[in-house]
Structure formats: C-alpha cells, structure tokens
C-alpha cells in the first residue's frame, strides 16, 4: 500500500520538476548546494544499524541485472569494492559498537559528476532520478570513472566490447512501478525506497527517536551536493569506509567557471586577435611576401 502511494508521489514529483531539470541539464551545471527538498527524486535510505549482512541484496541485484552470481562466502575483514560483475556489495566493519554492515553502490548523485563528464551523454541522470548508462552512446573514454568522487563506474577491461558497469537503480523496474531489486529483497527492511524528502525525514525521525543509537548525520544529504543514496549509521562514517572529506558542493560546479568562459573566449578572442593583427600590421614595413 505504502509502496504504491510512494510511487505515485514520485511520478508527480518527477513530472513537476521535469521542466526545470531539463533546463538545468542543458546548460552548464549550477553552482552551489542542491537543496534536497527542491529536487524530489526517488532516493534509497540505507539504515546500516538494521542491516543483517545477509547479502540478499547482492544476489537480488545480480539476478535483476543479469550479472554473475556473487561469491557464496566472503573473507571476513576484507573490504570488497563494487566491480564490473557486482554492482552492489555488503561489507562488514568491526567497530566500537560491534559489527556494522554497509551496502555500497552508485550514490546516484543529484548532480552527478559522471554525467557532466560524459561527452556523449551516455551517462545520464534521468528525470526520474536514476543515473543510467547507454551502450549505444558511450565511447569508452572512462572520463566518468576519473570524475566520480565515489569511484563508482567500473569498466570491463577484459572485453573487446567493454561496458561501463554500475548500479542504475533498476530504472526499468521503476518504470514499471516497482522498487529496486535490492530494496524488495531486503528481509530486514534496512533499505527503504521513496521520494528523497521523505527519506530524509524518515532518517531524521529515526535519529531523533533514538539519538543514542545513531550518529547525527545522514550521509548523502550534503555530500557531493547531495545524493539519492542516504545512509544512517551508529558510528562515524569514516569508520565505515566512507569518504568524509568530499565537497558539499556538487562536483560539476567545479567546472562551471571553465565551461562558462569557453563561449566567451571563443567569441571575444578572435575579435581581439583580428584587431591586434591589424594594429601590428601598420607598425611593420610592408611585407615582402607576394600574396599579401
């Protein structure tokens, strides 16, 4: 029940923000922090205190996306990274509060560095929220990998027809009104899917309800200008393998100045050079070359 209404709200939210978002995407990225409430895309709240570490989501993800089955058992203490064959991984961290399980995948940034890096728009933030990859457009330059602050996109180096691999938030399932496979298959309800504003609210509610249980931060609320993956945890995030030194400004904003200056230079410099050439010509003796 709740799920259906969430999807409806989402569709509404997506529709109402469509126009504005399209505008924003056509132009150079906007500077500054994105207000999570203003762009109400779908989001996923991961409550690491609830995660059992059963890795059901890993299996569900592989199944939904046609990826090889994840390893049956994993070595304790080894932090695995997502890879070209595994779009999401759950790692166990031993902390002062006991073991904490953390599911990682693409953060689906509100203003994704990968999409702004992509010169073919193969990497693309859809109006519905997920950041997706289009095999017919990508030329395999791997600039998205270089730019993503979370090092999420992975590349199939061992294939003559390589793809960029990363979580795409099950965009085709969303289109059919379903929730992402990992969310659906989590037995502990540690992963919740819904509009970002609601997810933020839910996160805050949980923190307020049991302040001694949570650190008072929702990772992803501001990181990299805000992401669609939001995290709750009982210990500081740097102990769970999260980068906490990231900018709260969106990453595409780092290139805004350069991108804005390009058309200016393209127009102004030739005019200036022409003037300079004319002025300089007067100062020099007539040139010897015939065809001037």
């Amino acid at each position, binding site marked *: 029940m709740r799920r259906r209404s969430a999807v409806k709200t989402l569709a509404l939210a997506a529709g109402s923000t469509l126009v504005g978002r399209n505008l924003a*995407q*056509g*132009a150079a*990225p906007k500077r500054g922090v994105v207000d999570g409430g203003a762009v109400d895309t779908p989001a996923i709240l991961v409550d690491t205190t609830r995660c059992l570490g059963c890795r059901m989501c890993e299996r569900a993800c592989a199944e939904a996306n046609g990826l090889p089955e994840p390893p049956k058992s994993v070595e304790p203490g080894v932090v695995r*990274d997502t*890879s*070209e064959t595994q779009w999401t991984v759950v790692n166990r961290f031993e902390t002062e509060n006991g073991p904490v399980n953390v599911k990682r995948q693409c953060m689906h940034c509100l203003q994704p*560095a990968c999409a*702004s*890096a*992509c*010169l*073919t*728009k*193969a990497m693309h933030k859809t109006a519905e929220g997920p950041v997706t990859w289009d*095999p017919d*457009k*990508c*030329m*395999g*330059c*791997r*600039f998205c*990998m*270089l*730019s993503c*602050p979370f*090092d999420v996109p*992975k*590349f*199939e*180096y*061992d*294939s*003559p027809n*390589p793809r960029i691999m990363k979580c795409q938030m099950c965009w085709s399932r969303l289109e059919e009104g379903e929730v992402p496979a990992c969310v659906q298959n989590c037995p502990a309800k540690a992963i919740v899917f819904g509009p970002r504003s609601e997810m933020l609210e839910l996160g805050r509610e949980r923190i307020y309800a049991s302040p001694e249980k949570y650190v008072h931060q929702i990772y992803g609320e501001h990181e990299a200008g805000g992401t669609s993956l939001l995290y709750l945890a009982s210990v500081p995030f740097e102990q769970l393998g999260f*980068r906490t*030194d990231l*900018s709260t400004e969106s*990453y*595409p904003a*780092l*290139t805004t*100045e*350069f*991108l804005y200056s*390009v058309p200016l*230079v*393209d127009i102004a*410099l*030739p005019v200036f*050079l022409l003037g300079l*050439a004319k002025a*300089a010509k007067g100062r*020099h003796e007539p*040139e*010897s*070359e*015939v*065809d001037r």
Partner: protein
Amino acid sequence: MSQSAIALRNSFQTLLDFGAFLRREMRPKGRILTPFNVITVAIMLVAVVVLVDRFAHGLGAVTNLSQEFPWGIWIAFDVITGVAFAGGAYVLCFMVYILGMEKYRPILRVTVLNGFLAYVFYSGALLLDLGRPWNVVNPIIGNSFGVSSVMFLVAWHFLLYTLMEFIEFSPAIAEWAGWKRLRVTLHGLTLGAVILGITLSSLHQSGLGALFLMARDKVHPLWYSEFIPIMFLISSVFAGLSMVIFEGSISHKVFHHRLGRDLKRRHSEIVLGLARICAGTLLVYVFLQVIVFVHGQRWAFMLTGWGSWYLVENVGFVLLPLVLFLAGIRLENTRVIGTAALLTLLGIVLNRLNISIIAFKWYAPVRYVPTWQEVVVTLAVISAELWVFRWIVNRMQVLDIAPLRSVKDSDVERLHASAA
C-alpha cells in the same frame, strides 16, 4: 563537342600526371637500411601485434589500466603531454601573423607541420585507448552532444584546431604539387585559420587541465588547484617553444640539406628570441605556482615524500631551466639554451604525469605502472609520426620561409583582377 572532349582528356591527363608524380614522390629518398629505419620499423611491427591483441581481447590484455587508474600513458603521455609539446604552433602563429614578428617566419612552417602531425597521431592514439571507438562519432555528428562536458569541449576544439593547422600548412602542399592557383586561395585563408587556431588552442590547452577539475579529491593537493586550466595554458607556451628549440637543433643536423638560406643564417638569432619568451612565460608560471602554493596552504605537505617530489619537479625542472634560459640569453649560448629547453620538456612530462598518474590517487595502495606493450605502442606512434614528418620535409618546402618563386606576381595580379 570536340572541345569538351579535349577538356576531358586534358583533365584526365592532369590526373595521370599527378598520379605519376605521387608515385615518384612515394619512393624513399636516401638509404633504406639506416639504424633509425630498422629500429622504428621493428617497434611499429611489434605495436601492430600488440594492437591486434588489444582489439581482440580488450584493453586489459595489453595495459595495466585498472578500476583505480582509468587513464594510463596513452592518455597522460601521448595526449596530455603531447598536446602541450605541440603548443609551439599556435604560439609561433601568434607571433608571426598577429604580432608581425617576421623574424620567426623561417621556422613557422616546420612548427605548424609538427603541430599538425602531432595532433593527427595523438588523436589516432586516443582511438586506441577508447573502449568503444565505434561510438566516437556520437559527440561529433551531433546525435549526442554532452555540452556540459569538459571532454566534449576539448574534443571539439582539438578537432577543429587540427583542421586549422591543416589549412595553415596547406600552401606547402599546393606548392609541392604545383597547384599555383589553389596555393593563392589557401594562403588567403591563413589569417583566418590562424586566428581561429589560436583561440581553439588556448581553450583546448587549458581544457586538458580542466579535465582534472572534478578529480579534486583524487589528485594530490600539491598538484590540484582550481588554476590547473591556466597553468596548463601558460605551460603550453614554454613547452611548445622549448620543443621548437629542441626539434630545431635536431633537424638542423638531420635535415641540413633541406634547410633554407634564411633559416641557416638566422637560426641562433631565432633561438635566442624563443629563449627570451620561454624565460618570460616560465617566470609567470613560477609566479602563479607561488600564489597557488600560498593560497592552497601547501606548506603543510612539504615535509612528506610528496613534498620532495614536488620540489624535484618545480626546482629541478622549472626553476633550473628558467635560470639556464636566462644564462643562455646573457651569454648568447645556444647550447645552454638547448639544455634549458630539454629540462623544460622533461618538467612538462613530469608535471602532466604527476597530475594524471603519479600524484593521481596518491593514496591508492596499488600504483599504475605501464606495461611494455603500452610503452611500445607509444613509441610506435612517435615513430610513425617521425616517418611522415621526414617524408614531408624531404619533399616539401618546410624548413624555410615560403618561397617567393612558387607564385609569380603576375599570377596574383591576374587572380585579383578576376576576383574584382
């Protein structure tokens, strides 16, 4: 009827003549079994085998690229460093065509040729690195414009600039082929091509630096700053001119028989002038580095190993060549200047590799080191470029100012008259 038949036969004859001319010109000049030829051919043959492997089994088969290091030397050296080295063309065009510094005209053509070939071969090398090269047309034919992408802008400015360089060089081709009218037309395009070329250059040189702006948390803070684009632009000036000095000293020996009178006479005077500009721009660069250093509060890193490495780059390969340039100018010693140029070039290699490979993901436990295959392919690209360069220099009027005799005054007047 018969007249058009004659015209047809004539043009057919012209075509045949040109074919014969081409065939004649295709033949190698000079000895074939030289050490240079033997070594470069061997390198290129090995590279072909490597590339077959690469396209059959993917990049992972021949490179050490990884999820941590998506860019290796095929990008960091071939493209990012190579483009800085090719910066001499736009700087010299600016000096000669815009500022009217006629003194440098004798080295203009060879520099433009070098720049053009560099771009053609580097973009070629870029295709080898692309995972899905068959989609490379997407951002070009417009079915997928990523206008908010720095890479998109760099690609377009790169492409158009290569075209401009071709136009700038094309009169030499027309002279060689004996197309007098075409030469006049092409020459008429030069100023326009130069102006656009300088604009496109300033943007793609800085754009290569801007590629790393979003890698803010991956490049070591001693190398990252928001000023990377400007630093790349300024360093492309002294990098490009140092390359001109360096190449000049080599082609002086290798292509002595092809040197024009003007170039022989004025060579050291030209080198001195170039050294002055190198020193000036190096000074600006150092000044900027100091500002960025203070602004970025970089002294915090100076006591680490990275701090020493930073000093190696900026003292050994920026300050030292600056001092040598100044000394060379004072002593009017082209040998000292040549050393300074060489050090500057090495400094550029260091700087570009630091940003894109060495100090990139400086915290990563596993480093990227190129495989021998990556090195061989890089050497093969350079070899192929040198072959084409030699072929052209041995045939076209490159190492001198454009010859006056190739176009007669009367030709030009006639053309102007017909245009009016």
